[in-house]
Structure formats: structure tokens, C-alpha cells
């Protein structure tokens, strides 16, 4: 096979070695090569076509449509009416919208750092070799697999309700709040707890990063008399900073998109509210209420685009900031 390597090595695997070959073995003529190139390109696109069709029909198309709807008054039934920037000015003037932004910000700003800190802490513990390591990793990772499901959200609601396990445990310590899910201020923290509980996914990524740190750096530092804290701050943290950056980015974007847990723990359905006194009315929940319960698809589209812009801005700031704290190894960039 090695002698017949052409410009498309990936396709080589498809040809069986035992087949009789036509033409010279070492290299086909340029014209045939060109033709084959075109064929391969075609085959390539054919293989991709389900994905491309899906992208165009299910992602790109609706996105362009929603961009148009964002500037219209559209109730799903009547033809959209162009109203320019009215949706956006209504949004900014709406106290409920501002409330949903505030709730979401709380969730992102409190939940993401806590989750990452816990993930890093546990990853540091699990990075050391010890018995039962694989079991612990699997155990800590498991919540990430099931955490986003509806059933877990229902269980969560039950755990944090009045006179349930969390409430009773608190009462033992003399702190009686009467259930988190009924309190407009507390309910968002039950959601924060839900996301922090799913620290397994970033933990696994941290573990991979920790494995990459060369051992000789630690050995050299130890010889120089650096303590564990010093080694962590001056070796581990800089060495895993690209992984940390990746996790911060991923988790932040992910947190902005919280929906199902807030909707279910907040008992969303019904009176177009989410949680007691809109306590868990996160951004996407309000978007859903406006779009599907109040039939205001134009306004909901505008809200969706506003969220996209906000997430893009946050991402841009994070990318800009990485120059100051993310260290890439020489040549790895």
C-alpha cells in the first residue's frame, strides 16, 4: 500500500489489496488523478449531505428566520409585521426581562466558579494514584451524565421542598427556611446546587490536563525546596491554564443556556411564571413564556438574539483575557 499513496490517503483503506489494479502501480496519469479527485470530492459531499441538509434546514434556516422575526410583531398566526427595533426597546423597558437577566447572572456568576473549583479540587485528589481510583472517577462523573434530565430535576425539586431532606437537615441546625423551592430568593440556589453537583464533566477534563504536566517540573521544584502550595501555584496552575480556560468558557456558555432544570424545579407550567414570584425565571424561561405561552414569537426571537450577542460578548472578553493568564507551551500554539 505504501507505494500507492496518493493525495487522498483516507480513501486508500477502501481498496482491497487483493484486487487487480489497472495501469501503472506507482502513479496514475494527471488527468485520471484529477477526475478521481473530483469523484472523491463528490463522494465526500455526498457523505456529508445528511449533515449539511440538517444544518441548512434545521439550524441555519430557522436562525435566519428568527433574525427576521426579531424585528417583527409575530404571533404565529398572522403575517409578521415589521416594527423595527420596537421589540428591543420593549425588552429593555420590561421589568420582568430585567429580572430574568438578573436571575441568570446570579446563576452564572455563582454557579460556574463553584462548579469549577469543586471540579479542580476533586481532580487534584483523584490525580494521585491510589486504590479504587477508577471507581471514584466514574462515581463523580455519573451526575454529569444524568444531571440535565427531567427526572433528576423532579427529584431535585422534591429534595429541596418544604419538610424534605434538605429542609429537615437544616432544621437540625436551627436554620428553618421552610423549603428552598417555595422561596423567591432561595430557589435559584437550589439550581446552583444542581449545576455544581454535575462537576464531573469539567473534572474529567481537568484530570486529563493534570496528566499532561511533566513530572520533571515537580521534581526540579522539590529539589529547589518548593512546598505543595508553591508547586500548585507556580507549576500546576500555569501548566493547566489552557484546560482551565477551556472549562471556564464551556461552563459559562452552558450556564447561560440553563432552561429545563429551572423550568421544572420552578414548576414552570401553568400561570406563565417560573418559580415562586419568578424566583427561577431565568432568561430562556422568560423567552419560552413570551414565545409559547404569550404567543409573541417576534419578541422571543429578539430575546434569543440578544442572548446570542451577550454570550458572544462574554466569550470575546474571555478570549481577550487569556493573554494575561493562559500559558501555552512553546510551539503548542
Amino acid at each position: 500500500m505504501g507505494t500507492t499513496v496518493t493525495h487522498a490517503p483516507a480513501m486508500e483503506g477502501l481498496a482491497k489489496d487483493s484486487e487487480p489494479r489497472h495501469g501503472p502501480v506507482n502513479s496514475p496519469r494527471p488527468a485520471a488523478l484529477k477526475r478521481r479527485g473530483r469523484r472523491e470530492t463528490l463522494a465526500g459531499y455526498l457523505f456529508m449531505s445528511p449533515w449539511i441538509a440538517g444544518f441548512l434546514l434545521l439550524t441555519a434556516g430557522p436562525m435566519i428566520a428568527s433574525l427576521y422575526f426579531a424585528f417583527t410583531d409575530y404571533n404565529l398566526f398572522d403575517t409578521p409585521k415589521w416594527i423595527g427595533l420596537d421589540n428591543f426597546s420593549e425588552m429593555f423597558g420590561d421589568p420582568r426581562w430585567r429580572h430574568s437577566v438578573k436571575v441568570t447572572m446570579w446563576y452564572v456568576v455563582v454557579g460556574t466558579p463553584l462548579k469549577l473549583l469543586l471540579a479542580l479540587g476533586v481532580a487534584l485528589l483523584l490525580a494521585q494514584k491510589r486504590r479504587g481510583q477508577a471507581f471514584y472517577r466514574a462515581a463523580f462523573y455519573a451526575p454529569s451524565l444524568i444531571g440535565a434530565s427531567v427526572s433528576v430535576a423532579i427529584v431535585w425539586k422534591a429534595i429541596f421542598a418544604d419538610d424534605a431532606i434538605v429542609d429537615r437537615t437544616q432544621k437540625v441546625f436551627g436554620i428553618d427556611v421552610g423549603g428552598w423551592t417555595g422561596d423567591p430568593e432561595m430557589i435559584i440556589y437550589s439550581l446552583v446546587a444542581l449545576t455544581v453537583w454535575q462537576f464531573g464533566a469539567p473534572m474529567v477534563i481537568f484530570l486529563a490536563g493534570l496528566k499532561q504536566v511533566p513530572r520533571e517540573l515537580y521534581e526540579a521544584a522539590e529539589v529547589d525546596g518548593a512546598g505543595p502550595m508553591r508547586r500548585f501555584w507556580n507549576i500546576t496552575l500555569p501548566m493547566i491554564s489552557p484546560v482551565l480556560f477551556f472549562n471556564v468558557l464551556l461552563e459559562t456558555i452552558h450556564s447561560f443556556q440553563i432552561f429545563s432544570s429551572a423550568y421544572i424545579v420552578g414548576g414552570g407550567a401553568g400561570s406563565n411564571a417560573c418559580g415562586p414570584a419568578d424566583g427561577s425565571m431565568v432568561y430562556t424561561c422568560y423567552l419560552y413564556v413570551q414565545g409559547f405561552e404569550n404567543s409573541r414569537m417576534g419578541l422571543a426571537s429578539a430575546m434569543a438574539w440578544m442572548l446570542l450577542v451577550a454570550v458572544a460578548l462574554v466569550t470575546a472578553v474571555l478570549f481577550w483575557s487569556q493573554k494575561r493568564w493562559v500559558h501555552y507551551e512553546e510551539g503548542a500554539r
Partner: protein
Amino acid sequence: MGTSRNVERRTILKAAGATAATLGLAATTGCGGDGGTSSDGTVTIRYAWWGAEDRAQRINKTIALFEKKYPKIKVKTDFQPYPDFWKKFNTQASGGNPPDVFQNAIGFLRKYDAKNVLLDLSEQVKAGNLSMDGFRAGLEKFGEVDGKLLGVPVGSNSMSLVIDKPVYTRAGVKPEQGWTWDDFDAAMKKIRDKTGRAGDSGMYGVMYLYDLYLRQNGKAFFTEDGLGFTEADLTDWWTKAKKGVQDGVYADPKKVAQIKPKSAVTAELAGGEFTWDNFSVRYSAEGKSEYSLAPIPTTDGKKTGQYLGSLMLSASKRTQHPKEVAQFIDFMVHDPEVAKIMGYDRGVPATQAQFDAFKPTDEVNKSIAAYETSLVDAGVLEPITPHPNGADICEAAFLRIAEELALGTRSVDDAVKQFFTESKTALVG
């Protein structure tokens, strides 16, 4: 090698072609299913309603009866809980694919008429496929909007005060027809003091109860195209509410929020709740105590402001089988066997024939029948006006903002202002 690749490409193309063909076929059969007429003349209609499993079982039995009588009509069913039902319906209707026939209520007639979704059934009445004779208490008029017949009532219900009977007895409170709001307030305090339970679950957020209160004072919650009361009216209503929550005569809103969708009465947080009389059927299944119906308090000792509400069946304008849909509705509202199966699940049957066919034997259903009979006899019932387009959003906002007020995240003035702002937006749209 070249040949082998060609063969592969052809295989791929064939496979792709086959896939496309299958998809195409699937699409065609899909359309065939939706159109609902098969080669032997059998017609399929889609029927959707809101409710729970027990209602579904009853309805499926009635459909079996219908299909026996009309072997050429098949009925495909679909149901969700109330809030989900309307989201799904809204999406289907806007996509041009609503069910042929569906459960409806007074708050949605104008809304979906404005969106051109509802079929005017009067054509079918003229054609003799649907009879509007034999309805009780003027119910045949309930689905009429601007001269169009947009819904046919299947049952009637009325706002009532559902009470936990032993709690009321222990407190020594005995509500009677014509009792006043002052009597009611005193009763709430008595229940709180004697039983340690709040008297009421949170009446200040129930739009239909506030409607009754307004009617007692010559107003109403909705006019034909807007709100029928002022900010000052609502400020009074909610000022009283706030004090009631603070004093513990209304249930702790935090606890009420957490037991949803269970009722605060069956969760033993409150001694009573203002709601539809047929809900007592559900409460009896949900709770451990004994529940019964009490009269609505009055302002002048006479007028309760009550009217009969009703669940209806409506047809969609897009249906390709208006005749079959009309025959279906006709069967469901007139056939005595249907009444025996349904009981009072959707309220007291709308037609006299069905009313006579089902004689309740258990206490709960008996008390519902007695309650509605007493209302008719007392002559307190008023006519009902179909709610304006956007009324459902106002109702949801009313409930939500009242809860925010009770939880203390809004002051009375703030709550009133917010409600009027949101209603204005909803009623314009």
C-alpha cells in the same frame, strides 16, 4: 481500483435514492393520514382535550361507542394537562394542523376566532348534522360569539367554595346562601384560631372569584374588549389580601407554591378554596378529608354574581370533514350512554337527556348536582359574556402577580400597576 470505486459510488447513489424514495413515501403516507379519508370511505378525525388519565379512560369508552354507531368514522385521540394542551394546540393551529375537534372553554372563543381557527358550526346545525335542542339553562347560547356558533357545551360548572367539611365543623362555621364578605372574613379568623389552619388557600389570585365580586358590585372582570374595573378597585382587593396573608387567615404562599399542582385544601394547608364545583371530584380523590360545596359570599346578602361556565367542543375551520365532526359533537352531547360513562367529570351534562341519564349515587357528585340546582332555583345566575382575545394571558398574570404580592416581592401599588401594564399588552395582541 477505479471500477471498484465506481461501483461503490453507484451503490451509494442507489442507497441515497432509495432513502429519498422512502422518505418521500413516508411523507405521502403522512399526508394521507392527515387528510383522513381512506379508499373504503372511512374517515379519520382527530380529537384533542385537556385532562388527566381518568378522563382519558372515560373518553376512550365514549369513543368506542361512537365508532360502533358510525363505523365509517375513526377517531384519533390526544390529550395533555391543561397548560400543555394550549401550548400544543397553539403550535398545531399556527402550523395549519389543528385537531379536527377539541375541548374548549369560554376564555378561548374570541381568541381563536380572531385567529381564524374556529369553525362556525351553525352551518352544520342547518344541515341537520348537529342538534342544538334540549340544552339546559340556556346553555345552547354559551358558544355563540357575534352570531357564530363556535362551541357546543358538554357540561356546565360554576364557581363555588370547596371546603374541608370537618375543619369547618370543628371551627363551628356554617356557610349559608346569602352570607356576606364580613361573615366570610369572620369565618376565616375563626378557622385560623380554632383549628390552626388557614381559612382559605389564596382567593385574591383567583380571577373568576374576583369577577364574581365585581359582578356583585355592578362591574365585571372583562368587558367585550378590555378590563371592566379600575386600578382603585384592584388596589382595595389586594390590600385586603396582603393583610390576610400577614395575619395567617390565607395560607402561607411559600407552602402553597411548593405543593403545586396539588391543591392547598387537600394538602391540608387551608380550610377552603374558591374554585369550580366539579373540582370537588378531583379533591376527593386527592385528599383524605371530606369535601363539600359552600355558597359564594355576597356583598348585599343576595347577589352572588355566579354564572354557569362550561367546557365545550369546538371544531377547527381547517377540518376536511365538517359533517363527521358535527356528527361526533352531536353524539357526545346528546347520547345518554355517554353521560353514564362521563358522569360529572366535565361538569353537569349540558343537555336534559344526558342530565336525566346520569343519576349520581355518591356524595360528591350528588352535592354538585344539588349545588347547581340550588343556583338555578335561587335565580342568582347571570349571563356570561365571552372573554376578549388575550383573556387567558390576563388570568395567568393575575394569578402570578397576586402570588408575588403574597410572597412579598411586590407592594400592592406595584402589583396593581404591573397587572394593568401586562393586561394592556395582552388585550391589544
